[in-house]
């Protein structure tokens, strides 16, 4: 376990998404000290606690040593020990630009929605979001994986084996699913359906991104960015190179940690005292 003597202050970002909860901790210098992922379930708070606990253990820290904590994501309001809430858009923007300083456009495809962000000097300038009705989200893939009876993580590789791209109606997750059922019964190959599916999703997201006239560099984040098929399809649909972070799931939590650090530094510099929440990880759940 790493011993963290040299740094006096640590900062944490907690990102509670609709499917995954992530925590990133950084030190005074902004260097990563721990990063943890866990599933989000119906018991947000307990999971936030658990993931935070594991992050602290990995960092070899006690929670009292964490100077400031920012929560983000869908469940950001349900993190009792967080000092501040910031939306995932600002956090992604910050996180992505710390990894890719030259980024101008970030695209995050999450489970609930797809977001496109314009970034200037690490800050979010403007954004567009679509909801799942337009099928431009990760859920689109999850539902399909379920329909096809394959693993979500296998979809990308599988789609690269396609011999043709079947055009999929991209109006809505539900419709697309019914269409896939029809395609299957017609005996179409799963690979080809997937290829069409990825293209459909990519074209929806690309159209969304075009509302902000895309400028390079473009970075793709969110769990879906792990899907090589999607990354390819995004490149084709955007007509430009697309960069992907090593840990696309963590950019939100990372950004939150960085914003926590900046807020804290700014405050201490100007001598003001930031209010912080009690550093307790009570085991409270909605059921107990």
């Amino acid at each position, binding site marked *: 376990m790493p011993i963290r003597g040299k740094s006096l202050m640590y900062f944490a970002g907690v990102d509670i998404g609709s499917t995954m909860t992530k925590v990133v901790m950084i030190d005074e210098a902004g260097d990563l000290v721990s990063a943890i992922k866990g599933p989000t379930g119906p018991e947000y708070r307990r999971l936030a606690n658990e993931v935070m606990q594991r992050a602290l253990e990995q960092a070899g820290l006690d929670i009292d040593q964490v100077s400031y904590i920012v929560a983000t994501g869908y469940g950001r309001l349900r993190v009792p020990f967080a000092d501040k809430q910031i*939306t995932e858009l600002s956090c992604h923007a910050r996180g992505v630009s710390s990894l890719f300083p030259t980024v101008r456009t970030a695209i995050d495809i999450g489970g609930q929605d797809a977001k496109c962000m314009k970034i200037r000097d690490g800050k*979010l*300038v403007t*954004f567009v*979001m679509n909801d799942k009705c337009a099928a431009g989200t990760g859920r689109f893939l999850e539902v399909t994986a379920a329909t096809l009876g394959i693993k979500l993580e296998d979809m990308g590789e599988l789609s690269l084996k396609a011999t043709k791209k079947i055009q999929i109606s991209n109006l809505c997750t539900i419709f697309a699913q019914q269409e896939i059922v029809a395609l299957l019964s017609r005996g179409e190959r799963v690979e080809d359906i997937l290829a069409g599916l990825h293209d459909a999703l990519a074209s929806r997201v690309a159209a969304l991104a075009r509302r902000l006239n895309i400028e390079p560099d473009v970075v793709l984040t969110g769990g879906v960015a792990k899907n090589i098929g999607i990354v390819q399809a995004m490149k084709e649909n955007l007509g430009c190179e697309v960069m992907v972070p090593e840990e696309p799931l963590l950019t939100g939590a990372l950004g939150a940690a960085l914003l926590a650090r900046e807020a804290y530094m700014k405050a201490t510099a100007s001598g003001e005292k930031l209010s912080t929440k009690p550093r307790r990880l009570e085991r409270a759940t909605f059921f107990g």
Partner: protein
Amino acid sequence: MSDKNEGLSKAREIYLNRSQRARELKAAGRRIVGYPCVYVPVEILTALDLVPFQTCGEMKEPISEASRVLPGSFCPVMRSCLDCALKGKHDFLDGMATIHSSDPQEKTARIWQSYTNYPYFHFIDMPITVRPEALEYFKNQLNDFGKTLEAFAGRKLSTDNLAEAVRSHNRQRGLVRELFELTKSSPPRISGTEIVQVVRALTSLPVLEGNDLLAEVIAEVRSRSNGPEKKSARLLIWGSTVDDADVMQVLEANANVVVNESCGGLRAYRGEVKLSNDLFEGLASYYLKEITCARTFRQASLGETKKDYARDLQSRFGHLQKMIKEWRINGVMMLLVRYCDPFAFEMPSLKDYLDSLGIPSTYIEYDYTAGSIAPLRTRVEAFVETLG
């Protein structure tokens, strides 16, 4: 806090139980006529001693009855209105006054009429342009409306009564504008959420009771010390319908909503009906021209043979420029109710216009159900973060 905010809590009570007063009045022998859209000239109802009651939707109520007669991809506000009616929530109504302000209004009105049997039901047709012949036609439509109402009310519509009603409703419009004056300060003296509750209360009360409520609210808000706190941005909400306090609360999470330019807010109160010797002329002209809803076709000059996009935008959205200046707006939220076509077509053009004014804006959509509130939150907060 020593402030009691009696007027505001009264407004909240009425907002939470809109039909209560109407039921009391009904029990006391008054006759209640519902109307689903702010385009229905309530002055005529008031003049005939009928109580106008706006039949609103209820976001938290799952649609069941209406889903049997209207498809899913249809204006969710009207679906919700009709659903409430079919579930008997408006069983105290003696009649309905409907109007062709948009397709969903027109189509819902006809289905409403077919599946209910109020003693009175009238449909007012409404032209799309503000051309002279259209205005003339609309004026006659209002005349017909008056005639059927006279027959229903069993009394004549006297010029004096109508003039008096116009005065009362003009006074209400004036008071609502006064209420919005109180959001010009920073922090505003009254929150957007409170205003939604007040405005919704007005649409469920006889005009004079509404005016009294407004007077009370305005007086106490002027002197209150527990008004809303200053937040990081002052927003203008533009859209078809924002009439739910919970939605407004989300919109106000980290900003002050100081103007609600929708038919749950300022829109139906910005102008005034001109008192001339031809009152119907005044009514027709007010409702067709003064209410700035996307449903009316406006252009820089009638029958223009050239198109100048900049002038076109000015003619359609010019009224927002003044508001943005007077209320010191630093962000505009274009809030679209899904499937509201007239407003949906407007979106990119309005953004062009706001860009030309250098005002940041964001386009947000919701489907008028409880489920769409949470997704709003992130969009709104992120938008405000970009302003800060």
